[in-house]
């Protein structure tokens, strides 16, 4: 039984945490792709930027002596999201809108987003240096242990406080997004524009507004994902640059342009990564006695070594692209 709880802690909780972060990032990527038809590579750095906004705000709050039972990082999240959304709209105005106005191809926008990536990354390191920071320098990171009332169980189910907030907030964000996309006029307009931009424009949808709202949602969610990733691990300038590729993999696996696909893709990639590096021999150990004599349980029985964790996402991506090029949910194309 202890081994199953180990499995639960490692795979289910780890996968859910990772999947939530991937899903939040992938929603932004996929919305931008659906509306503007280009792969926004700067999304990872928008996540990092959002995390740094939250970090600065948390520092300010701590400086003002505001202490609550909720970790300060979560307290300042709404304000940071507003700032990040404004920054996202500003980046669009400054770098992408002029190119769109000229009628540039999506590929040009993609290259422009590389430029934006480098500028954000340079600025972050310019202001904050390269060292690793943590949100929990002044307050403790709560650890929650649930002892199970079974006989012979010594290992508790354990997770940290930020992880609980993370999963709950992801759920709230996903439900809110669902309501927005299906109930509100603007959300329906967004879906219409993702399906057919020309038809949306002639039927009187304010496409400029839709573009702006897309950036607001994408920027806000990116900030949320980045901050939560920083709360779960640590805050580094290249925090999200390393996970932008799994996020893209999640968005593509789910079908670019499909918000629900992105959520599914995010969790799929998250769980696949934790499952692939999990040492399966742990689960075989309870059956040690009932296995045949010749069968010796190897010390390590993971599908891939943990160094290759990141490659799992790409292998899934490549296989999906080959077998079903538009993703699990049928995605848009340029």
């Amino acid at each position, binding site marked *: 039984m202890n081994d199953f709880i180990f499995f639960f802690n490692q795979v289910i909780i780890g996968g859910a945490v990772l999947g939530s972060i991937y899903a939040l990032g992938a929603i932004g990527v996929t919305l931008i*792709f659906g509306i503007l038809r*280009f*792969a926004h590579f700067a999304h990872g750095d928008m996540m990092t930027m959002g995390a740094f906004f939250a970090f600065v705000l948390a520092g300010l709050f701590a400086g003002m002596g505001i202490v609550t039972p909720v970790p300060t990082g979560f307290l300042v999240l709404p304000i940071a999201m507003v700032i990040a959304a404004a920054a996202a709209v500003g980046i669009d105005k400054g*770098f992408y809108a*002029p*190119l769109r106005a*000229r009628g*540039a191809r*999506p*590929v*040009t926008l*993609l*290259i*422009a987003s*590389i*430029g*934006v*990536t*480098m*500028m*954000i*990354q*340079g*600025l972050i*390191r*310019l202001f904050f*240096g*390269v060292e690793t920071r943590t949100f929990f320098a002044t307050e403790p990171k709560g650890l929650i242990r649930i002892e199970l009332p079974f006989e012979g169980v010594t290992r508790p189910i354990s997770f940290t406080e930020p992880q609980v907030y993370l999963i709950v907030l992801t759920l709230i964000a996903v439900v809110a997004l669902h309501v927005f996309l299906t109930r509100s006029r603007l959300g329906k307009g967004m879906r219409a524009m993702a399906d057919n931009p020309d038809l949306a424009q002639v039927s009187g949808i304010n496409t400029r507004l839709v573009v702006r709202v897309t950036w607001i949602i994408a920027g806000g969610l990116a900030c949320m994902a980045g901050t939560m990733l920083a709360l779960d691990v640590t805050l580094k300038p290249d925090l999200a*640059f390393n996970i932008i*590729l799994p996020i*893209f*993999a999640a968005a*593509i696996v789910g079908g*670019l342009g499909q918000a629900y696909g992105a959520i599914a893709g995010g969790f799929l990639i998250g769980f696949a990564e934790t499952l692939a590096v999990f040492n399966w021999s742990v689960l075989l150990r309870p059956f040690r006695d009932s296995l045949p004599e010749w069968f010796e349980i190897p010390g390590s029985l993971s599908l891939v*070594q943990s*160094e*290759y964790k*990141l*490659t799992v*996402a*790409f*292998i899934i*991506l*490549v296989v999906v*692209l*080959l077998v079903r*090029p538009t993703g699990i949910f049928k995605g848009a*194309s*340029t």
Partner: protein
Amino acid sequence: MTQRYLVAFGGLFVLIIGVGMLMGAPFTVRLMVEAFAFALIAMGLNIQWGFGGLFNFGILGMLMVGGFAVTFISYPINPDFWGSGGPAMLGRTLIAAAIGAVLIVMAHRVQRLGITGKWRATVIVIAWFVAYIIFRSQMDPAARLIISEAGWVGGLGLPVVLGWAFGGVLAAIVAFFVGKVSLGLRTDYLAIATIGIAEILRAVIKNVEWLTRGTLTVSPIPWPVPDPLAFQAMGATPVESFIYARAGYLALVVAVVALALWLIHRAYMGPWGRMMRAIRDNHIAAGSMGKDVKGRQLEIFVFGSVLMGIGGAILVSFVQIFDPSSYQPIHHTFLIWVMLIVGGSGNNFGALFGGLFIYIIWILSEPLAQALFMVTSGFSEDMGWGAIPDIEARSVQMRVFVLGLVISIALRFAPRGLLPEVIKRHD
């Protein structure tokens, strides 16, 4: 147009002379060697993107493959490995891999036995899984044995120039498979697929310690020309020896670049280049004219990757150390894209110019930023606000920002590059 070329390359020449006077000759010659290697890589990307319209974000992978190839060929032989049981176990691994490959190929052909649809897919998945297990069952013990007994495989001790050529060949082989897998995809998907494959290559090269020594790094890798120590043995002072040795290396690299440029330009001006541009601009029309679009795209992807592999090999043997963890997307993929976009995609001389110019900017922006920070810091100290902390670490990061700014400005105001593509028309 000719005027534009003269101004561009003349300005570049003046810039290089200026750098030489400011930073000293050894630094400038080193800078030029690396700049020419990057120009070669940018020319490779120009073949893929400028001629063929193929979006490759996996340049880093090709550079690593080239770097590994030259390390493997030119590094001295490791007698511990050849004396151990390693070669035999590697042979068995190879057989296991072959068995796995046969299994997979057979699984792909089961429809001949009447197994189709879902069942065929199941058989293929099982075959891949079984092949993977067979391979791992031989590979893991072999890797463990080599690491414990010999450290790593070592090199072959062959001439360095052969290693450069092998870098091109190995990159071509890898590019063939990458292209086979991903070239059917549309632009954005192709970008992500290539970046993903490059990351897989990076993870593999970094972690197969028995073959590449991984994060332990390999050094010193020999030079193809006499190195500074050889000149010092002949009685030159250290500074002189660096200048002579690097100048010799530079001459060799310039020769390689010139040869590549001549060959590419001839091909580009000929029927082959026109066909490639036709495929790039309208692959449906080109296909209907009887051109094998997919085959030609694969060809162009492989050609471009050869130059990238050679360029990666040149860079590694110049710095004499192969460190898989030193490869970063910004430095080894995005930088090259900036070179091509600023220089002018579709124009060979544009790629050459962009490669040299952007590399010089990239390297110089660090001391420039440092000087700028020093001045600002002095100013803020005078004003009583205190000095700027960690100037050195910050000015290193400044160049990433400068590069981003350069590409943003280039896309906005000169989207076709400083030396745009020339399209000859015979009306």
